[in-house]
């Protein structure tokens, strides 16, 4: 069965599978942009992506897991900010607190550049009726309960998402 109603709005179906700060952005940006264009949008949060539905977002970033991440400072004169610091992986992966530092710097950079926070983007999605589906199986595996997640989300499994995605014009896995 394809789309039953030819006049129905376009539909975007996303899978959010990662829970780091950098990877939290694409699903929320695409979801809010789609909703802003009048599309129906649904996001399936699975595996580490499920943590993006917790009331308090703690998404962080690890330079070790992202070797291509530019290491730049969000403050100081322009020339200083342009420097891409050649910090060896040995340091970024072993110095205690380096991930916290990198997370703080990334948040600061995003704020300076005018990028909305993950919290703002998620609130926007909720406000624009984006369907947020938390993965039941991931909840079971990691020992989460329904009340660990925001009340605006629903809980479902692969079949719930696939039925929604079957009628979607755009489907993306993030």
């Amino acid at each position, binding site marked *: 069965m394809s789309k039953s109603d030819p006049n129905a709005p376009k539909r975007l179906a996303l899978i959010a599978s990662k829970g780091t700060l950098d990877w939290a952005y694409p699903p929320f940006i695409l979801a809010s942009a789609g909703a802003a264009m009048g599309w129906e949008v649904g996001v399936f949060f699975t595996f580490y992506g499920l943590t993006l539905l917790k009331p308090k977002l703690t998404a962080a970033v690890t330079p070790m897991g992202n070797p291509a991440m530019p290491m730049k400072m969000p403050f100081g004169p322009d020339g200083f900010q342009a420097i891409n610091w050649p910090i060896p992986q040995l340091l970024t992966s072993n110095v205690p607190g380096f991930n916290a530092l990198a997370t703080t710097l990334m948040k600061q950079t995003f704020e300076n*550049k005018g990028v909305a926070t993950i919290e703002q983007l998620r609130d926007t999605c909720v406000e624009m009726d984006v369907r947020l589906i938390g993965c039941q199986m991931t909840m079971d595996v990691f020992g989460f309960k329904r009340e660990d997640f925001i009340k605006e989300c629903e809980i479902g499994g692969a079949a719930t998402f696939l039925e929604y995605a079957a009628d979607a014009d755009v489907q993306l896995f993030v």
Partner: protein
Amino acid sequence: MDVIKEDQVLDCSGMLCPMPVVKTSKAIKTMEVGQVLKMVATDPGAPPDMEAWSRQTGNELLRSMQEDGKFVFFIRRTK
């Protein structure tokens, strides 16, 4: 160029993707059909994004221009 008279102004200066389209979408919904929204942005991605947004939503992008180093859009709510 004719002067377009706007009914409402939305300043998205300093905001990056996707906020200009998100804010525009919210603003246009508060307006009457036929009214014109003037949106100002500094995001270099705004011109192509506003064109795509207007094609997708059906709202009419009357003009897209640059003024004082900013991107200015006039959008008429059509439905």
